[in-house]
């Protein structure tokens, strides 16, 4: 070996020496560092910051955006309403029982105002609980024949807070496609797994439940902690359909799913005593886990409530966000709601009269005949949502000029999960149910009733007249006439 070393030529040795050194270098040299080249210098960072241009906070809105300029109502929004200075018969507010301008309700509210002032200046936990709140809660529970009720200070926040109080990440909610916007917000806040079933389609719901059952059998450990809920509306605000509650209750026990029922449109309207869908179908109210409704439609006050068994409802007192973290309902509004409940209890009377038969070609009334909000929709769409909306808007304007206030159902088109069909005029059934309440409250009920019937017919006639007119209606001139109306 040593011999070989001496015999080897010098160039060979040098070459080998270099090779060895090269190998050592390769072994010990640091590997090529990727991140070093990516690391930005302070200068580069500054440039990036300088370069960044954010979008405007809100996109610009054109001045004539259809939902930008609100109609201004002067005076109370009761049976007669003054919209943009024009007196109309009100077919557009959800004042189903006509309690909005009821003298007894007003007097109670005034008495409460004299005692408590307006605001509560605190959430329920911190001296924001008034004796009136406790009274209203027990009255609501008694009215609905449930163990307990809880009130919220804002109708929209009621179901939107109630859903995430129970349903958490990982839980499953089965929900009707036509569910209203506040339910959708509740679902979103819960961060649960949402499964939509076709509107009022119990077969579709059962299919989803079966699918889930199979899934559960595969993973029983997970299934033991996954809560399941069905969220439906009693009377859908978007379609005026009633949910098939008896079938839902059957499915509930079959698949062990809890039912949350949103009754804002049906509370005070459906059922013999106005207890809503459960009474309408004769379903035992204990079979529904949670019922939520707002007190802004039939009750004609502000706020909302949830009712059910104490086991369910009490949980919201610490975990309902809209309950814990928000100021409580002004006592005068609670007092008004109590008086409204008194009136509803004293005389349950008829709730609605049907105007279904009176409609004619061009427009179609959808939903169940006893719905207090009448939804009119175009028989055939012109093809685009925008032009349909414009046509309906023209009908509304036409009626408004003839002193009948209707309203277009408003939606945030980009926000809705399933946008309701574009062809809706939503006629709040104030009028129709006003017939019911006038029977109860006016001194000369038949007179009032006759007057109402007349105006119903008048409204329907107007719509009928409006349809052919608006077909050829020059949009431009209509807009102009509207503007001049406003100036006056």
């Amino acid at each position: 070996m040593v011999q070989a070393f001496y015999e080897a030529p010098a160039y060979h040795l040098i070459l080998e020496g270099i090779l060895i050194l090269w190998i050592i270098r390769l072994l010990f040299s640091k590997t090529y560092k990727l991140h070093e080249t990516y690391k930005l210098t302070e200068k580069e960072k500054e440039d990036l910051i300088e370069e960044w241009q954010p979008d405007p906070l809100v996109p610009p809105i054109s001045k004539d955006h259809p939902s930008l300029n609100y109609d201004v109502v002067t005076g109370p929004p009761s049976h007669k309403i003054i919209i943009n200075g024009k007196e109309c018969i009100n077919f557009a507010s959800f004042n189903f029982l006509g309690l909005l301008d009821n003298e007894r309700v007003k007097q109670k509210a005034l008495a409460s105002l004299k005692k408590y002032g307006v605001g509560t200046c605190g959430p329920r936990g911190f001296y924001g609980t008034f004796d009136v709140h406790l009274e209203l809660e027990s009255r609501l529970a008694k009215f609905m024949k449930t163990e307990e009720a809880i009130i919220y200070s804002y109708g929209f926040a009621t179901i939107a807070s109630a859903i995430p109080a129970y349903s958490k990440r990982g839980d499953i909610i089965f929900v009707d496609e036509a569910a209203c916007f506040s339910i959708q917000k509740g679902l979103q806040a819960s961060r649960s797994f949402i499964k939509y079933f076709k509107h009022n389609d119990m077969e579709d719901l059962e299919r989803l439940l079966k699918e889930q059952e199979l899934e559960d059998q595969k993973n029983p450990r997970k299934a033991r902690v996954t809560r399941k809920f069905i969220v439906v509306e009693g009377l859908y605000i978007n379609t005026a359909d009633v949910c098939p509650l008896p079938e839902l209750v059957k499915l509930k026990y079959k698949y062990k799913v809890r039912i949350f029922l949103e009754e804002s449109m049906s509370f005070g309207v459906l059922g013999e005593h106005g207890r809503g869908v459960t009474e309408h179908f004769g379903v035992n109210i204990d079979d529904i886990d949670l019922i939520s409704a707002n007190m802004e439609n039939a009750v004609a006050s502000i706020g909302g409530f949830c009712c059910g068994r104490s086991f369910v409802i009490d949980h919201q007192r610490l975990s309902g966000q809209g309950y814990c973290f928000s100021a409580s309902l002004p006592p005068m509004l609670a007092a008004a709601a109590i008086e409204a409940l008194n009136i509803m209890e004293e005389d349950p009377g008829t709730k609605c009269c049907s105007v279904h038969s009176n409609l004619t070609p061009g427009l179609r009334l959808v939903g169940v005949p006893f719905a207090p909000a009448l939804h009119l929709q175009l028989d055939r769409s012109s093809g685009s949502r925008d032009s349909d909306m414009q046509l309906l808007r023209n009908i509304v304007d036409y009626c408004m000029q003839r002193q009948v206030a209707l309203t277009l159902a408003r939606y945030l088109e980009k926000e809705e999960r399933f946008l309701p069909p574009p062809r809706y005029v939503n006629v709040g059934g104030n009028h129709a149910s006003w017939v019911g309440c006038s029977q109860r409250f006016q001194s000369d009920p038949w007179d009032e009733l006759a007057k109402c019937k007349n105006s119903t017919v008048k409204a329907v006639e107007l719509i009928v007249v409006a349809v052919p007119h608006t077909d050829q209606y020059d949009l431009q001139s209509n807009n102009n006439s509207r503007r001049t109306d406003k100036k006056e």
Partner: protein
Amino acid sequence: MRERHDQSHAYDGKANCIMPIQGGQHHGGLYKRPFVESFEETPMLVAVLTYMGYGILTIFGYLRDFLRQWKIERCHIAREKEEQRDFVPLYQDFENFYTRNLYMRIRDNWNRPICSVPGAKMDLMERASHDYNWTFEYTGRVVHDVINLGSYNYLGFAENTGPCAESAAEVTVKYGVGVASSRQEIGNLDRHEEMEKLVAKFLGVESAMAFGMGFATNSMNIPALTGKGCLILSDELNHASLVLGARLSGSIIRVFKHNNMQSLEKLLREAIVHGQPRTHRPWKKILIVVEGIYSMEGSIVRLPEVIALKKHYRAYLYLDEAHSIGALGPRGRGVVDYFGLDPCDVDVMMGTFTKSFGAAGGYIAGKRLIEYLRSHSHSAVYATSMSPPVVEQIITSMKCIMGEDGTTIGCERVRRLAENTVYFRKRLREMGFIIYGNKDSPVVPMMLYMPAKIGAFGREMLKRNIGVVVVGFPATPIIESRARFCISASHSRELLDKVLGAICEVGDVLQLKYSRHRIQPSLVRPFDDSVYEDIDD
């Protein structure tokens, strides 16, 4: 009683302000008045004892749960319906461990029902519990004239007499209490329009929009402003409604340390430099969300610095003035007025009417913003508009603060609130209590620390006919339980002296005078690393 020297706490904002890493300006110069904020460190012994207290409570909790399980102790909890026993439990039993074993013991300190105006003094309904707070029974008696340190009645507009109540009554007679329609349909009353114009004028901005609930104002409008591809930088102590709104928006949320401008700047720089996670696309927009006064800490946002940062990094600023509007600033215009800044520098001004104005609801105000909200806010489309008498209360009280009613009552109230606040905070500190927050903040948190003292303090104060708010976990970090006083312009000096006397007495009995009299630089408040986002309102 130990004597304290107040000046040891006072220092000027200049000395303690941090130089921004890049901005190059000296931010101390941004403050026109000294910015004094203190968060005295928790004494070590107290912290250890507090943890021990929770430990003992937990052990006893388990013991009692065990007894309940074997039916040795009676169980009062509402039970699931028989037919639904085999359903997945609606809420897990262990989730309620805290409620069952800790909260239940001192539950009588919350939800105390009142039966009068929530003014400087209020009447409480007396209630008794024969089963250790599981159920309450109303005795039918009324505890009269309890001094109210709990309601957010900063300017004393919770009144049942006077111009506000009178005009609200008139409106009730004319309009009724409900509206039964949304703003976009036919629930837009002339009163609403008038109020919104007034709010805009009051705040000194272009336009404003009002909503029926303060909580929903945040949770329903943040999603209208930001969405996917946007970044929300949120203070760790932001209110639950802001947190919910940010979540609903679908934006990415990053949390910075409470009122810590270094933390905020670091997040801003990183966000802009690195862009969105994974895709590295630049952010569409960045929204900084802060509150004016933090209702649990009593701290005031470092608004001049936030605005400087926001301008430098081109972010947008969402300022929630729920507690500060009306309650801060020489003219009662909130935190912007307090620092003497231009309201136009704040992109989104949000506030509530519940507190200083004695009404209900919230507003959003700003430049070029309202038109968009009027057409795109969830609330305008789907929620019922505000009740007319509530709107009237806002109009009348706001006009009073602005002096538009021809009197100086409003001005005086704003001034009296500021005086009361400074006086009350100064006296408490002199007594040796640990008080958190800014010297000008009418929200005064006083540290109790130990869980047993939460209940004891609330009850002892009620014995002396004073109603206070006490809060513990989860509204605060676990060891930082506290009592909170809300000062009002309607409190007279004698009333405050009476309260201070009582607090001093109770403080001696319960040994609450923890303060060790140390100088605390403002920014090194002891952070506990766990981020707790949901502070109670």
